[in-house]
């Protein structure tokens, strides 16, 4: 089986690695590239723990063929913080106790970032819709919604 070389942008930096035929982007990122922030939950497109953005759109990395991101921009939760400075969404999640077990958090953050990038002043309904493809099995949705709204309003401690 021939492995395919893939060159793409990950969180603003060019990266290259080899993908097996049929390998999904989640496996490719975690095992091939070493970005462990997207999580494997269901492998079926149900849970949203593996959410990344590809060219700015949220997609499920477990249902994305790794080689389809060649030449594209992929963003994961690992790219949110700038050095030791957390992203305002991460600050807001911390301030609002929006992570319990934390497994859904990277996917939630990416869905929230994609929302705020296209709609800086979302309503609560917009937030609920934006994270409707992300399951929190601790059922801690309220603090997550509050955190995203807080980040939008710039109320998070900077």
């Amino acid at each position, binding site marked *: *089986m*021939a492995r*395919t070389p893939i060159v793409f942008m990950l969180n603003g930096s060019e990266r290259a690695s080899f993908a097996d*035929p*049929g390998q*999904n982007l989640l496996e490719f990122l975690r095992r091939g590239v070493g970005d462990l922030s997207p999580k494997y939950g269901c*492998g*079926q*497109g149900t849970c*949203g723990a593996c*959410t990344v953005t590809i060219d700015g*759109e*949220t*997609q*499920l990395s*477990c*249902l*994305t*063929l790794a*080689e*389809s991101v060649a030449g594209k921009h992929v963003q994961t939760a690992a790219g949110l913080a700038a050095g030791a400075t957390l992203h305002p969404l991460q600050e807001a999640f911390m301030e609002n106790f929006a992570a319990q077990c934390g497994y859904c958090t990277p996917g939630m953050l990416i*869905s929230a970032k*994609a929302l705020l990038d296209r709609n800086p002043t979302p309503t609560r309904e917009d937030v*609920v*819709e*934006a994270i*409707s*493809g*992300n399951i929190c099995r601790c059922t801690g949705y309220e603090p997550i919604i509050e955190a995203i709204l807080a980040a939008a309003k710039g109320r998070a401690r900077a």
Partner: protein
Amino acid sequence: MIQSVETHATLAEAQRAMGSDAIFMAGGTLVMRDVNAGVAATRIVRSSDPVLADIRLSGDGVTIGAGVTMATIAAHRDLAFLAPVARSVGGPQIRNMGTVGGNLFAPHPYGDFAVALLALGARVNVAGQIGAPRPLADVLRERGRVGIVASVHVPRPQAPGDFGFLKVSRIKPKGVSVLSVAAHLPRQGGRIRGARVAFGAMGPMPLQATAVERVLDGQALDAPTIARAAQVAVEGLDPPTDALATAWYRREVAGVHLKRLLERMVRG
């Protein structure tokens, strides 16, 4: 186990590359599930043909490329009648990936978009096919061996109120269907002419409710007609039992939800 992934520049080439060991992949939301579970074919065939992303408006209809995503439809200013249907599919990530063509092949309980297309009388252009586009109902019946779908031609409702769609799920805003139902009821002089009603999750594929259509045709959409339509809602349907609902439950509630949809269409 996937041995190879092939991407072809044209649909014609992709069609030639297909075989019993290959599966065509568009958005990946269905095919990659099987790949991840290790039950997919050995070759994945894809195509970068621009026709797949095309949306072309004609006089009374619109031709939508099979690779157009649910998110694109939900945001398209000329496809407002389909936007609520597209928004009912999956969550935001799935809508950014899942395609019109793929939805025609979605197994139970998925395929809500195909339900709407069936009620609208959509026709399907298959890659490499000579002659007129095929009725969607035929394609759905033969979907294991239909070939690669290039596009669907969808008649646009004359009046916005002529078309309605309802999806019933246990989880909101994102959940799979207990059932879905779509109705296209063109009216002339207050009478329904050419009613088309389709159910999802009420059989192995989206199915037309022909008994309901017969009751509605030629009638005004009033309370007695709606009551009669609800009574025959499940005639000819064969709902499955799954983790969401039993066949019995689906039979019991199908008429109720059809009634709710039709009453909503009366209110406009």
